[in-house]
């Protein structure tokens, strides 16, 4: 009478092969799903722009610290972070932020501008028009209007967030 003990031993080896195959599949599924970080830079840059906009202009009136008479107060660049309650320090040693605030008159002529942060991000805003480069620093521009002593100013706020390693993979 023949028995199937040899076949049963072969089946147990097969079961282990299937076990490791499925375990490997589950591991790769979890790794590919959770291995990519979330890109929150759009939200972060918009929040940064809003905070700067509130610092530059509140209640429709431009912050008096920005002007020295009718001219731009050069010292404002030095007190910018403190005045706007911003902290650009991050875990990495690199600067991960860049902001630029530009003032225009009604003829769209640029009156003055000041910027702060990593100047290397300036070129990213131009490159980002091409989708191929969307893994570069995230660039966001916003415009609004404000006044000072009945004079009218158009203001453009540019905020750029780096942090590619944390947000893009």
């Amino acid at each position, binding site marked *: 009478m*023949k028995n*199937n003990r040899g*076949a049963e031993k072969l*089946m147990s080896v*097969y079961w282990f092969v*299937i076990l490791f*195959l*499925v375990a490997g*599949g589950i591991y*790769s*599924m*979890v790794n*590919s*799903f*959770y*291995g*990519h*970080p*979330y*890109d*929150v830079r*759009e*939200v972060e840059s*918009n*929040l940064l*722009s*809003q905070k700067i*906009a509130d610092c530059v*202009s509140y*209640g*429709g*009136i431009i912050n008096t610290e920005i002007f020295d008479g009718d001219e731009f107060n050069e010292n404002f660049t030095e007190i910018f972070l403190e005045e706007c309650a911003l902290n650009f320090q991050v875990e990495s040693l690199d600067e991960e932020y860049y902001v630029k605030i530009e003032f*225009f008159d*009604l003829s*769209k002529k640029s009156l003055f501008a000041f910027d702060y942060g990593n100047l290397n991000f300036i070129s990213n805003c131009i490159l980002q*028009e091409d989708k191929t480069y969307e893994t570069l620093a995230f660039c966001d*521009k*916003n*415009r*609004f*209007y*404000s*006044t000072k002593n*009945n004079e*009218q100013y*158009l203001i*453009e706020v540019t905020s750029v967030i780096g942090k590619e390693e944390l947000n893009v993979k």
Partner: protein
Amino acid sequence: MLNKKGQLSDAMTWVVATVIIVILLVVFVYASGVLGKANKIETGAKSLLIDDVDENVNYFYEKTKIAYLVNDENKNEIDSWVKEEIK
């Protein structure tokens, strides 16, 4: 008389099962990879979401509207510049 047909059909069953398992694993790994890449948080963040308001409100345009309360001269020019799509 030896008869091995039963064992052969067992093996064929498991071959088919293995193929199905492998195909399903490949499909699920591919799907999880596709879903994993779709993780850019896009909230339409230029808009405020306010309860009881049907439309989203643009934060920066609202600052402009507040400034109009102070001085609303040249409103059309200002509006066109503010709403212009920025590249």
